[in-house]
């Protein structure tokens, strides 16, 4: 099976001295790809700068204007975490467009697995606001493009932080199912199990918040037991992964205890949700320990391509087992409550 990746674009000027979201992260990602030794099974597609038409499917035009003006006037700190430089808007448009280029190639081939190695990451970016290192929501731009083609899109977000931007953008969109595993409590403070989607998309958001110290077995069990039945019922035609690797035990930004072996198992698991080859794309989100990032990307891509991964073993034994059933019940109760209130309103 081929791996389709975006061409490298120059992201070197989107950098803030000492900031953990830095250009070296993409170097690590490229090394992970090289380590796969795919030769002719590696397909590199030209980078694409997302057009305004492609961006306004998820972002408000005024925000794009503000971000553009902010960058071209020299940039600076947008909030306590998020920065922009003179070239950040240009670079962010390439990051947002790269997913579209990879998807085009997968559609042409009807085969392969896609990986978008781009930064800045995207899943915290709201429709009208940058935050959490993110300027434009890369995975959302891709999902919205697929939705416009009549596709049903599953987004699995295994970054250690909840993807509040992606959730917000598709909150009331029935054609997109958003599933997130994340540490709780942690930035950005959203992602409770009771957040299940808007009125027209109840059950299209599945949050699986996990306690600090949780290991890979708990994450996989959460996905299988809480999200599995919802995904099966949704029957996605495409699977996009917000593939952050900051849930790795070596990552300094959080406290989950995953290994690269866990990411391999998770990648294999999400591959099974894709209805056919050529319908799975992973998007780089977080991951700030460069060794862990490289090994985890390598593991994920190996598994998605059907190769054997013999690196770090999967982790197990962390806290959270007892929470899964409680979360499942809480989620069910919330959905029932929402349906009941909808019924009451319609009979009024």
């Amino acid at each position, binding site marked *: 099976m081929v791996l389709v990746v975006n061409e490298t674009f120059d992201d070197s000027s989107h950098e803030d001295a000492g*900031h*953990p979201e830095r250009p070296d992260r993409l170097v690590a990602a490229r090394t992970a790809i090289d380590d796969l030794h795919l030769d002719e099974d590696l397909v590199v597609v030209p980078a694409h700068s997302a057009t305004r038409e492609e961006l306004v499917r998820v972002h408000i035009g005024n925000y794009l204007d*503000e*971000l553009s*003006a*902010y960058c071209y*006037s*020299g940039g*600076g*700190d*947008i*909030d*306590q*975490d*998020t920065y*922009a430089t003179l070239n950040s808007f240009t670079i962010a448009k390439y990051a947002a467009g790269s997913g579209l280029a990879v998807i085009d190639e997968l559609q042409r081939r009807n085969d392969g697995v896609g990986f978008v190695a781009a930064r800045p990451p995207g899943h*915290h970016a709201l429709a009208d*606001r*940058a*935050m*959490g*290192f993110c300027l434009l929501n890369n995975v959302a731009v891709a999902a919205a493009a697929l939705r416009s083609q009549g596709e049903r899109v599953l987004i699995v977000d295994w970054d250690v*932080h909840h993807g*509040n931007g992606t959730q917000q953008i598709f909150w009331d969109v029935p054609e997109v199912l958003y599933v997130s595993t994340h540490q709780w*409590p*942690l*930035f*950005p*403070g*959203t992602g409770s199990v009771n957040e299940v989607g808007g009125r027209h998309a109840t059950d299209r958001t599945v949050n699986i918040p996990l306690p600090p110290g949780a290991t890979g077995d708990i994450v996989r069990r959460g996905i299988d037991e809480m999200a599995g039945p919802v995904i099966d019922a949704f029957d996605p035609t495409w699977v996009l992964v917000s593939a952050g690797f900051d849930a790795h035990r070596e990552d*300094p*930004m*959080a406290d989950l205890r995953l290994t690269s072996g866990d990411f391999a198992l998770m990648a294999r698991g999400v591959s099974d949700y894709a209805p056919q080859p050529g319908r799975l794309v992973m998007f780089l989100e977080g991951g700030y320990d460069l060794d862990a990032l490289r090994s985890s990307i390598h593991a994920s891509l190996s598994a998605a391509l059907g190769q054997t991964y013999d690196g770090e073993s999967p982790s197990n034994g962390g806290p959270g087992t007892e929470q899964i059933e409680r979360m499942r019940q809480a989620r069910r109760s919330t959905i029932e409550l929402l349906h009941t209130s909808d019924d009451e309103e319609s009979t009024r």
Partner: protein
Amino acid sequence: MKPFQSIAVGYDGSHDATVAARWAMEAAKDFGAVVTIVHATGLREHLHQQFVADVTPPELIALAQECAFDESGLHWLVANGDACSVLLRMASPPINADMLVVGSRGEGKREGLLLGSTSLEVAEHASVPVVVVPSSYVEN
């Protein structure tokens, strides 16, 4: 008009935030309101925790004493998120703030742009009145 009962102030330890907290305490005395001072724990703060959830920073306690504001009406909160989102969340349960207070920062070349200005972002999105306190408030 019903007097304000619950005032929330964004706080990051800066001079501007301290000025905003002072204004909020003085206003709260007039309104008979409680004051919740909230610190937003950003993504990077996991690396270097600046404030502890259970311990009100001593400088805020000192500020309350200076303002003769009853400490029993002062609440300290640390919440995950960016400064804008966290402050906006204060208008919802359980805090139910009916006024949000934020310090102002001169943004020179970016005047008029929402980006990079917590005060403008909060004012743009808030569902309750927002007070932006100029950094020169104390001096004036």
